[in-house]
């Protein structure tokens, strides 16, 4: 990407009075008044119970739908961005879906290569080096040529992560990455996201801004730095881990859902 480097601490996501509606039911509001600023280098975890609208919130943050009301700016640009001319700004953001949402007609390697080849007009061979690096870091090399539907859900999520990282985004949104994973995969995700937040070789050691949703704060202790919660059709910024206990958050503890 030809964007200027992001300075740590500068606002990248700014929401003012934003109302978030459900992606499938646009008349239903899942969060009525979101006032939220994410600065470059932040590592946010947004928690919510099942059905609280975590995915919808992330879809809006990812620019897949417009706020029902309020103002949402991404790097100072009004979101959502659908115009070709502003696409460069939009690609500074990567989104990892809950189930990976891979394209079923493509293999794992083709899925990961797609954004790279499409936006940079690369042949398969030209994109191969970058793709093999992404697959290697996400431990997907043995399944590179497998159809995406053949892989288990845990690995599909990783492939979704590799695909989102292909364009080297500055901000990464990850929807419920730990849901349904065994402890080995949970450890891998927490470690990998920590590395991304501090600077991963895949991203040329550049720290990236992270926003993650979850149903349980507990696994994120010692990893994420800022916390917020979606509940009662509202969005509450809780701050660092120490403030969660003080706020008596019900989402601290138990197994990851």
């Amino acid at each position, binding site marked *: 990407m030809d964007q200027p480097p992001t300075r740590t601490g500068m606002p990248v996501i700014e929401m003012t009075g934003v109302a978030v509606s459900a992606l499938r039911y646009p008349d239903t509001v899942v969060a009525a008044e979101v006032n939220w600023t994410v600065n470059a280098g932040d590592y946010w975890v947004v928690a919510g119970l099942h059905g609280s609208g975590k995915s919808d919130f992330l879809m809006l943050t990812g620019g897949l739908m417009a706020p029902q009301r309020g103002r949402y700016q991404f790097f100072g640009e009004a979101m959502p961005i659908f115009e070709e001319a502003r696409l460069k700004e939009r690609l500074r953001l990567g989104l990892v879906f809950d189930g990976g949402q891979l*394209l079923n*007609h493509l293999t794992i390697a083709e899925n990961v290569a797609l954004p790279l*080849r499409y*936006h940079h007009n690369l042949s398969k061979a030209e994109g191969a080096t970058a793709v093999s690096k992404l697959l290697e870091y996400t431990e997907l090399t043995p399944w590179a040529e497998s159809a995406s539907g053949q892989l288990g859900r845990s690995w599909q999520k990783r492939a979704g992560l590799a695909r989102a990282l292909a364009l080297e985004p500055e901000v990464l949104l990850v929807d419920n990455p730990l849901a349904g994973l065994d402890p080995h995969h949970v450890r891998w995700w927490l470690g990998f996201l920590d590395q991304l937040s501090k600077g991963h070789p895949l991203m040329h050691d550049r720290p990236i801004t992270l926003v993650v949703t979850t149903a349980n704060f507990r696994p994120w202790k010692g990893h994420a730095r800022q916390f917020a919660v979606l509940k009662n059709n509202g969005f509450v910024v809780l701050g660092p881990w120490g403030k969660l206990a003080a706020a008596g958050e019900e989402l601290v503890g138990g197994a990851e859902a």
Partner: protein
Amino acid sequence: MRLPLPRSLAAYLGRGLFRFLLTMQGLGAFALITLGVMITRFGAARQVMRPRVFEEVARAGLRLLPMFLFISGALGLVVIGQTVSWLTRVGAINFLGTVMVIVVVRELGPLVTALLVLARIGTANVIELGTARAMGEVEALEALGIDPVHYLVVPRVIGMALGVFALTVYLILGALLSGYLWAFLQDVPLRPSDYFRQLAGALSGLDFALLAVKTLAFGSIIALVTCYHGLAQPLRLEEVSRATIAAVAQSVVACVLLDALFIIIYLIT
């Protein structure tokens, strides 16, 4: 959403008319969006899109060729073999060329091809795209900054338009050849040179031009209607079968209406 049954004939007709108009509006908008994307994104992401288009041409054309050769043989037997035989019996063999051109080249060839491509590939389009939509693949493409219409619809429209055109040509050629073969086997006293001279005499330049326009239009319409039903609205998995049925019905109606328009053009010219 399922509405209660209408309580009068007027309500029934009114609801039907409203649905028709809404569908036409949706289809029209979708067709314009697709056309717009084809123009504005022409040549974009060539390394990804060119293989996608080739794949769709192969899917809606090349891979259907064996089936079409079989159908052309059957069509030759059913239509041409019998027509030649009967025209000979009534002493009207001089009209053979005209009858063949009207029945096979202008009407049956393009329409049969369009309906078979609809059955084989059009239905698959709705199911694939409807499932992709239901599984969130369209949102995934949008999140990657890839226009779903460009990536999913444009190759299908080009592939189907070219596929229907090419298959129609093969179907017509196959049917005309096999038709003569069937007639020959029935000992009809018609030399190959006379048969093909009559066909060439009955064909005009306009037939070739209109055949191309008609088949390209059939292919585009089938692709647009099936893609519209698969993609244009959020679907749940259980809604995909309903969308497929609607897409097939509307594609058939659209092709028949377009065919009627071409009949008028043929009659005027």
